[in-house]
């Protein structure tokens, strides 16, 4: 069953594109990572899911219900956390939580909020105006989870949390997921996606580039070799680097070669020539997706 389904979802802000023709579905029980650089359209998409903004065209469905009209009751099934959490400064954390609980028809005692507060070492009796960003984020987590939602929509959820709290938060998300909660979260931090997600999508400049299962992405087993040869200039042809990677790049004296598997063979070939500098690292998720995308595009062209 699809918990989230987007069909050609498009949002324009005047002449600017928020997102364009996004097609995506998230199944029940997924932990779905929505990845992209700043300004890619992640928050725009999330705002449309939360009915904070409305699409210019296309449609979005949650739990099989289209969101072309406002559905406040559907929000009882959804927990959300925005990237920049703001609350009324004169209220205490407890008042915010009570207000949220009441909106869901609950009293605070009926919710797991005290357990979560202990877990995140959060003092809910202080006023919001005295909170650091980290504490506001903790309040956001408690506020988003107190009604035990079936779907969590999280926009950059860990920004502002210290590493220890991030760990606790991921642990909690995993536990919730084991209890059947579907999680859709946006981030630009690769490690978060690797730790948590079973499916990922990459968005750039408002366009969805790729949707994959995490196992596929991890299975790519790619490495990027950055090498500077003693002999100056572009040596891609002369040293046969294009045979290793047809998309090898040369910028400011450095050759960038992406290798999938067979790393030792590539290195044997490269070290035949005098080298000034060399480094090997995992590609960023963006690089991985871009390569995957480029490859798909060129496969499509050749067909």
């Amino acid at each position, binding site marked *: 069953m699809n918990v989230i389904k987007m069909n050609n979802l498009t949002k324009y802000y005047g002449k600017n594109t928020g997102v364009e023709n996004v097609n995506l579905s998230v199944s029940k029980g997924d932990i779905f990572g929505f990845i992209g650089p700043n300004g890619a359209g992640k928050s725009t998409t999330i705002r449309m899911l939360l*009915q904070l903004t409305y699409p210019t065209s296309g449609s979005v469905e949650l739990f099989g219900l289209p969101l072309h009209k406002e559905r406040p009751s559907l*929000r009882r099934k959804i927990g959300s956390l925005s990237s920049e959490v703001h609350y009324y400064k004169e209220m205490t954390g407890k008042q915010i939580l009570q207000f949220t609980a009441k909106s*869901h028809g609950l009293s605070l005692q009926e919710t797991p909020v005290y357990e979560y507060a202990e877990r995140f070492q959060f003092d809910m009796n202080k006023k919001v105006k005295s909170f650091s960003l980290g504490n506001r984020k903790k309040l956001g987590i408690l506020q988003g989870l107190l009604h035990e939602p079936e779907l969590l929509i999280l926009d950059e959820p860990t920004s502002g949390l210290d590493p220890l709290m991030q760990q606790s938060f991921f642990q909690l998300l995993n536990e919730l997921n084991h209890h059947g909660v579907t999680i859709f979260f946006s981030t630009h931090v690769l490690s978060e996606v690797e730790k948590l997600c079973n499916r990922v999508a990459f968005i750039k400049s408002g366009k969805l580039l790729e949707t994959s299962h995490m196992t596929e992405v991890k299975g790519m087993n790619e490495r990027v070799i950055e090498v500077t040869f003693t002999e100056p200039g572009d040596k891609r042809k002369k040293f046969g680097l294009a045979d290793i990677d047809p998309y090898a790049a040369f910028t400011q004296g450095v050759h960038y070669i992406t290798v999938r598997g067979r790393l030792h063979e590539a290195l044997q070939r490269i070290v035949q020539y005098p080298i000034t500098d060399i480094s090997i690292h995992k590609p960023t998720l963006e690089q991985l997706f871009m390569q995957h995308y480029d490859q798909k595009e060129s496969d499509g062209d050749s067909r």
Partner: protein
Amino acid sequence: MNLIKLEILLLRRSFIIGGGIILFFTALLGSLADYYLNNAELLEAVEQFPDAVIEGFGFHVSVMTSFEGWTSGQIYTYYVLLLGCFAAMWACASIVKDRDMGTDEFLYSLPYSRLHVYFSRVAAQLFLTSTIFLLTFLITVACGFLFSQIESVRTIFFIMLAGYFIVLAFSGIGYILTTLLHSERSAMSAGVGIVMISFLLNMMAGMDETVSWLSYFSLFYVFDTKALVHGDGLSISAAAATLGIYIAGTALGAFLFKRQDVVR
């Protein structure tokens, strides 16, 4: 806590300050009524004021023979001016304040519809405005009994009710503006601005016959308080016009807000 209580909590400081100022001025003017009413020289001097000032500030000597007349000229003018400013500011800031504080994402992701949020705010502001109206009326009557002589409490009530209707009309205009503004500061300025423009237009209309038409654009001109002092009842057409502006403004604001995007 529900949405109405939340709005009252958010406005409580402004309510205490605004209410305090209005009630203080009402008590001050109410207690000084007899000093002016019994001072023939002062009233003669007032008659020499420019027409614009007389019209704008309600120095109508012809009715300043009773506490009711004093109320219609002095207490009424300052009460409408001050409560109008506060009510219009609250209305102008209704929606835009959440955008400014960044609390809009939190508020609109709760299981309340946009219209529920909007009309809860309208209801809370109506409650606060009505509270100040009733307290002002009670203080005026109390001042009348304590420091002067009251002939008709009903007349005073109608005078204050007329002012209340004008204040509601200012709120109605504010509800249209709140969906169009981008910061709470601009909402404050717009709220005070619409009341001041209305007041000044009425004042300028009194300068000369040739510009008297300006008063048609002023809410201060809608009710004839002198007629109220003379025992006429509250004008139904004026009440309908002011309440009409309030209802139409509130409805238009709701319509504009219903599908407005929350953007950063």
